[in-house]
């Protein structure tokens, strides 16, 4: 049955109409808050530069009897430079990365005035890292509603503090694998925003869940064997991270034992109130390569930091 293009666009419009963009006053308040934060951040940055220059000049210059006071701190205009005047629409703001300017970084105890915690509420595509060119298999990641973590003896990682979560499946190759070969591994990669101050609870409970589950039966009633879990000391990823492995007897595609061990690495990284989890799931019986998981974990944490600003 043939259709006309106008019909398809009508269907698209109907789909778009089914969603709600939110209330205008909420959007106005968020936009104003972002503008204030941006202005405050700019002023702070200029202030730090001025202070730095003054301190630097004190170090370099010979001491004098009296240090002149620095010039008044320049103030930044909070208003964006508009160019929507004139006959034709011309947005002044360059089409740079859309989205947020807010930060979700946890405040450090003992430092100066705490910044207001700003937890983002949505996860854009750009929050997800891109593979290094040498790992790119040419297969685009697919966003799917897959589990973010493997089962751990039935432990439940609380989800009531989840604000938003997106999960994708990512397929990669190792750098030394030539083009055209089958992939070397895959990730279930999730990003979850938690309510302010709750993300560290999640990592703590994840550690405990791994400790409490050193051995478990493999999932599925008719799947023989067991897997062994253990925490691996980990640092240098985000604000904190949890790395653990799952080991089981390797099986080939027919389910026959290979005599090798199948090792899966799972790392959860917290950046402020955001947690990203890389669950390496291999490809046709391959085991996780620590160096590769480390490299991708760094890229994942870096992408989130860039997103959060």
């Amino acid at each position, binding site marked *: *049955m*043939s*259709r*006309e*293009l*106008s*019909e*398809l*666009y009508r*269907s*698209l*419009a*109907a*789909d*778009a*109409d*089914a*969603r709600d*963009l*939110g209330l*205008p*006053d909420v*959007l*106005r308040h*968020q*936009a*104003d808050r*972002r*503008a204030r934060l941006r202005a405050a951040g700019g002023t702070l940055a200029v202030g730090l530069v001025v202070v730095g220059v003054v301190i630097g000049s004190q170090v370099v210059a010979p001491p004098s009897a009296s240090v002149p006071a620095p010039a008044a701190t320049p103030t930044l205009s909070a*208003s*964006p430079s*508009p160019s*929507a*005047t004139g*006959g*034709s*629409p*011309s*947005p*002044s*703001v360059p*089409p*740079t*990365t*859309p*989205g947020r300017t807010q930060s979700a970084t946890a405040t450090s105890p003992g430092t100066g005035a705490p910044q207001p915690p700003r937890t983002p509420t*949505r996860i*854009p*595509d*750009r929050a997800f890292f*891109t593979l290094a060119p040498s790992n790119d298999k*040419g*297969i*685009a*990641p*697919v*966003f*799917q*509603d897959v589990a973010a973590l493997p089962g751990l003896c039935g432990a439940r990682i609380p989800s009531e503090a989840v604000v938003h979560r997106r999960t*994708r499946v990512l397929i990669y190759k190792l750098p030394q694998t030539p083009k055209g070969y089958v992939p070397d591994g895959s990730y279930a990669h999730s990003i979850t925003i938690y309510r302010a101050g709750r993300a560290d609870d999640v990592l703590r409970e994840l550690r405990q869940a791994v400790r409490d589950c050193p051995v478990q039966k493999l999932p599925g009633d008719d799947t023989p064997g067991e897997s062994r879990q253990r925490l691996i000391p980990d640092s240098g990823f985000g604000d904190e991270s949890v790395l653990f492995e799952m080991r089981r007897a390797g099986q080939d595609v027919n389910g026959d034992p290979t005599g090798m061990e199948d090792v899966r690495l799972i790392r959860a990284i917290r950046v402020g109130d955001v947690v990203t989890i890389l669950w390496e799931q291999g490809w046709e019986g391959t085991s996780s390569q620590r160096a590769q998981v480390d490299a991708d974990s760094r890229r994942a944490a870096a992408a989130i930091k860039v997103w959060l600003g």
Partner: protein
Amino acid sequence: MRDGQSFDDFYRSTTRRMMRYGYAVVGDYNEAQDLVQEAYARAWRQWGRLSAHPAPEAWLRLVVSRLATDRWRRLRGLRGALRLAGAPPSVSPPNEDSVLLVQALRQVPATHRRALALHYLFDMPVEEIAVEIGVPVGTVKSWLSRGRARLAALLPDLAVVELEATDVA
């Protein structure tokens, strides 16, 4: 001085059309939602002057288009594979025709998507599209024609009569 009430009225009267446009141009609902919200946020920041603009909705569409173009530029390397992998799932089951169209639009150049969206969603004649985008009328005709031809190739069930529509001529 910005008038919140007039902005809210503008927002309520235009959001539906803007979301349709964003969805058609971006090809992903969640991304479209982000971009449209960003466009409105920028509109509010400049509302003091923008409220007096002769075509604030066209201004918004231009912002959405530029944000979308930037996004597509960033994702350009993934587009080929996206064709293999299909569209990411939406929150609720979308209409099948809508899914087919969006998947096909992802393989159409951004300029063509934009012209097609203005034509089919806003019933704009070629001359108005040319003014809004800032290109000659002949360019818009070419974009519409080539965009339709590409969609016809990607959507085998598309009626041929649509390709012969005289509104492009």
